[in-house]
């Protein structure tokens, strides 16, 4: 596990909140002034089956599993390059088993600590306002937020 090797230095929690009853297929990240000059070294996503169940700013419930399995993340660096293109949100979850409850309940599995655990980036300056979560099919949401833990450092 690379985090055991490198250690977690600094973490910032950011949240993406789609509009209620959203029909968009793209959810943009907000501007995050605090992270503008930071170099991001890793990112993970919380979901409402494991860990906290509501956003830190009372923005709503954390993203449910049925969206995690149907959404993709794109991140853009400060040169305008989409260095992460359409990464399934599963890849950012570091818990183990989670359940999907819908018409039928199925047990899904995600990247766990016995495989690779948290994804670590080469330190990169991210332009958050150009980053987005893409859903091939719009999903109606209400009081929902996607909460990311962003690991960063001040210097490259």
């Amino acid at each position, binding site marked *: *596990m*690379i985090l055991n*090797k490198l250690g977690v230095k600094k973490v910032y929690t950011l949240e993406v909140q789609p509009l209620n009853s959203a029909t968009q297929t793209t959810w943009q990240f907000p501007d995050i002034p605090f992270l503008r000059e930071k170099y991001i*070294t890793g990112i993970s996503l919380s979901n409402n089956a494991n860990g906290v169940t509501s956003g830190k700013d009372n923005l709503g419930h954390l993203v449910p599993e049925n969206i*995690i*399995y*149907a959404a*993709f993340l794109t991140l853009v660096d400060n040169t305008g*390059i989409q*260095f*992460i*293109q*359409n*990464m*399934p949100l*599963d*890849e950012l979850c570091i818990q*183990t088993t989670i359940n999907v409850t819908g018409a039928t309940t199925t*047990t*899904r*599995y*995600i*990247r*766990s600590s*016995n*495989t*690779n*655990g948290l*994804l*670590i*980036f*080469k330190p990169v300056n991210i332009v958050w306002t150009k980053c987005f979560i*893409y859903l*091939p*099919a719009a999903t109606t949401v209400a009081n929902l937020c996607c909460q990311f833990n962003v690991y960063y450092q001040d210097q490259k």
Partner: protein
Amino acid sequence: MIFQDYPVFNYQLVTIQVNVASATGRQYFPDLPNLRNVQTLGIIAYHAGVFDKDNNGVYLVTTTQFLQSYLTLTVGNEEVIQNMDLQFLNPITGNNVPYNTSGIIPLNGQRFDFSKSYVTIGQGYTGQGDPVPYSYAFGIYYVK
């Protein structure tokens, strides 16, 4: 484990869409301009037990068919990875699909020619009940 030695530089989700039921034989990658002449550090293969649909809204390959599929990657005119079981490229547990406990296989920064690379579906596979179209999805970790 690749990420102990390499961080993630770049990632791209790529898919091979199959439009024919009960397809067998080779299914080639589409042209991927963004991945021409890049160094590939690792590849993850996804199946329907990981997520339902790809970024085009197409169903992923079923776990049954996933276990009867093989990947061939080409560098220049040489098939350097020949018919590797997709399960070896799957580090994510789920749906009783075997997974690689050592994580993502390091691919040593090789410059694959994806236009000459393909997935082979086992000849014995009948494909009954599979949705059409469906897709093979891969996460490509690379550095330019």
